[in-house]
């Protein structure tokens, strides 16, 4: 359904994406993991047309995405890292933003309240402004906005960042539930391994602008790739993986 071919992007001297290839089947949930600054967000931004790639192409339904971007966007929803709700609009107008162009206000509001209920927010939230919501509620409202128009493709940008473990687990469950219910194709970028296990059909590891590894969650747990194993276990590695550092404990520490 969505394919990325040889995608490259450079900012000044830094090559952020270096020939990335990806394929997503309809209804598949792909989770892209990788350290900070490895190009995960830039990958999403290139697909959305928010950045212009230096090389490569993106295909949607076997056609260059650039030729049918408006059509793609009409079937697209996204949950941003900090929800990116519009501060000047009440929550229901945020959720119904796209719907208000397609139907009468009352109908759009009804759907917004229904979508808010789907993510566990009551109708009393509808008339609040984003500044009046907690971080977790903002994420949920952002999720409601992402699914308001029943999109066929949904992107989740670090959906659990800044949330406590219980709220993060709730968001993960919601995302998985929504993807299963709607059959939408999803790309999630995250550092959070609990999100990976809850959301992913397939996992892709991005490292220094390249796709280093990809496979299912079960394959991920038995993979032999050192970097992937360290990433999963949350083990410290030498920054930028240059010359190896001696990470053995300093024998002088702890002595009286």
């Amino acid at each position: 359904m969505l394919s990325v071919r040889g995608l490259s992007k450079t900012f000044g001297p830094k090559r952020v994406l270096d020939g990335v290839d990806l394929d997503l089947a309809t209804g598949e949930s792909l989770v892209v993991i990788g350290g900070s600054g490895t190009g995960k967000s830039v990958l999403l931004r290139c697909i959305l047309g928010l950045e212009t790639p230096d090389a490569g192409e993106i295909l949607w339904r076997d056609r260059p995405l650039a030729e049918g971007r408006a059509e793609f966007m009409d079937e697209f929803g996204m949950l941003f890292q900090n929800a990116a709700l519009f501060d000047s609009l009440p929550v229901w107008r945020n959720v119904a933003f796209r719907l208000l162009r397609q139907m009468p206000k009352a109908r759009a509001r009804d759907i917004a309240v229904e979508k808010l209920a789907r993510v566990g927010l009551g109708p009393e939230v509808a008339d609040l402004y984003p500044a009046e919501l907690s971080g977790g509620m903002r994420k949920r409202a952002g999720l409601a906005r992402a699914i308001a128009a029943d999109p066929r493709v949904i992107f989740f940008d670090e959906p659990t960042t800044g949330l406590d473990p219980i709220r993060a687990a709730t968001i993960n469950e919601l995302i998985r539930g929504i993807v299963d219910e709607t059959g939408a194709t999803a790309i999630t970028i995250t550092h959070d391994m609990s999100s990976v296990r809850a959301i992913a059909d397939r996992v892709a590891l991005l490292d220094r602008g390249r796709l280093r590894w990809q496979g299912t969650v079960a394959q991920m747990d038995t993979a032999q790739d050192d970097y992937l194993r360290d990433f999963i276990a949350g083990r410290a590695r030498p920054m930028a993986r240059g010359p190896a550092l001696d990470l053995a404990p300093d024998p002088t520490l702890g002595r009286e």
Partner: protein
Amino acid sequence: MKPVRLTGRAAIGLTRMIGRVTIFAGRGLARVGAHPSELARQMLHIGWLSLPVVGLTALFTGAALALQIHSGGERFQAGDVVPAIVAIGMARELGPVLGGLMVAARVASAIAAELGTMRVTEQIDALVTLSTDPIGWLVSPRLWAGVLCVPVLVGVGDIIGIMGGWIIGVQALGFNSTTYLANSWAYLESWDVVSGLIKGAFFGLIVALAGCWFGMRAGGGAAGVGRATTNAVVAASVGILAANFALTGLFF
């Protein structure tokens, strides 16, 4: 050769910048009527809510101008020209320029801060993902609100400024109320007022354009938004003064 090269490079950079700003403004103005509800909201913010600050500025300026003209005019027995000079000065110059500068301080900063915050919190990216053109939704209503509202503010400011001069003239300088008002209108030509209103439309565009341009390009978190706000106010203020000189030369 180095100074020549540097001058050339600066000139090319300036030309390129002017071109980009012009295209940006053109795209914004071309989307007229795309979102009427947003235009109404911006007209409320830029026009109606600027009325107190523009009105007070005009009132004190008109009053101070009356005192100055009376004091200066007395040196050559021309104190009677106060009503006419206040009216012409407010309509042609002080109403549009000071009104524009006050709107610049209040509105350019607010637009740059709002759009800059939207930029750094990904709200502008969110608009794109919701199939909404940020230029049509954010920039166009603000540009048109500036163009439409600032002339109205200037017109109201002209009246309040003349009233400020009248209050001082009658209460402190010994003018007869009826004579003061009659002299104010007697020497005022319609072009004095119309030229000031046209200036107001240009100044409104400059203010909104500076706020939108710097706000939409903000980056680097809170510090970036702060820089965008400062740059917008500076650019709008200098732009108003430069445009005022150019328009005055063109009109008179």
